């Protein structure tokens, strides 16, 4: 994310400066913003490949042990998963609206939508913590007195749970980093740092947040929705 160095004559603290300041190696504000945006997109490409490795492991083992995966998946709470997905999608909306507010220069709305995004993201993480604790209590954490009660092909269920914790854990880590950045953005927004002429950090963070949402859009069906029909196999 491009931060700004003060141009001569423009103070960098105290006075609101919702105008762009250009780093020395760029020719124009547009070039700087364009470069930063492409930089964030290239970073997201690396994230796609990073999560991709885990999706590969999931793909391979679900193919190999479909019954184990199905019965292990049923141990997750469907309602909680669906509600949490809804919460995250709401946070994506509020984040998109935050970026839009910056683009049209409504400072109070930027702060409002960022705070809403923060609260919704925090809710998601809180629910996940509850789910993790629930799994721990029910001996569904591989390596610690693991016991998948009533599961078909129980010997292979640790693979499902390992992927569950690995994938949602990596996702949650990305969300925690995101929450940290939102706090910084809120502080900056309250000082009037973002406006139509310059709001690149908000935009770029928005891209990151939406990406994290997309990962969850795939994790939810893959981990929670395997064979939820009541038909016994």
């Amino acid at each position, binding site marked *: 994310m491009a931060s700004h160095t003060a141009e001569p004559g423009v103070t960098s603290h105290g006075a609101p400066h919702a105008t762009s300041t250009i780093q020395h190696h760029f020719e124009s504000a547009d070039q700087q913003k*364009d470069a930063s945006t492409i930089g964030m997109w290239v970073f997201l490409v690396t994230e796609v490949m990073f999560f991709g490795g885990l999706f590969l492991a999931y793909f391979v083992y679900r193919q190999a042990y479909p019954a184990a995966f199905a019965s292990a998946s049923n141990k997750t709470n469907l309602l909680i998963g669906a509600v949490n997905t809804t919460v995250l999608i709401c946070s994506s*909306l509020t984040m998109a609206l935050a970026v839009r507010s910056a683009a049209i220069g409504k400072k109070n709305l930027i702060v409002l939508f960022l705070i809403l995004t923060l609260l919704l993201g925090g809710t998601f993480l809180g629910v996940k913590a509850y789910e993790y604790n629930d799994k721990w209590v029910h001996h569904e954490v591989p390596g610690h007195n693991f016991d998948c009660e009533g599961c078909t092909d129980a010997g292979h269920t640790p693979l499902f749970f390992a992927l569950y914790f690995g994938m949602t854990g990596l996702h949650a880590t990305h969300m925690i980093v995101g929450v940290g950045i939102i706090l910084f953005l809120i502080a900056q927004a309250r000082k009037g740092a973002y406006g139509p002429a310059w709001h690149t950090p908000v935009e770029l963070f928005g891209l990151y947040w939406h990406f994290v949402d997309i990962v969850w859009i795939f994790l939810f069906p893959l981990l929670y*929705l395997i064979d939820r029909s009541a038909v016994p196999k």
Partner: protein
Amino acid sequence: MANHSGHAHPGPADHSPVDRVTEQHVEHHIVPKRIYFAVFFALIVMTWVTTYVSTIDLGRWNIFVALAIAIFKASLVVLFFMHVFYSTRLTKMIVMASLFWLMLLLFITMTDIWTRNWMGVPGR
């Protein structure tokens, strides 16, 4: 001396299109709120649809339906929340490239897994 690439001579700048490689493509488009809300509504609906469909036994089609819905939802987020619909060609290419490489990783590895027992010889 071999020196033709024009250095310390800020002579008459050539403004012909082929030389303007630093022309910028920054997007200044503001997406209308109604589009955001329409996408949001679609995402919520499809979330509950996919949850409901998972409780119906479609046999081996469950996974395909679930993935199709997920891909649809992800596409909405990419195109509208992430503005790719309104973005430069380069951004679109970067997104396509990431998907293409992800598919390479997944499907080429699976060509091994899927064909493992075809030869009828142990370990081949």
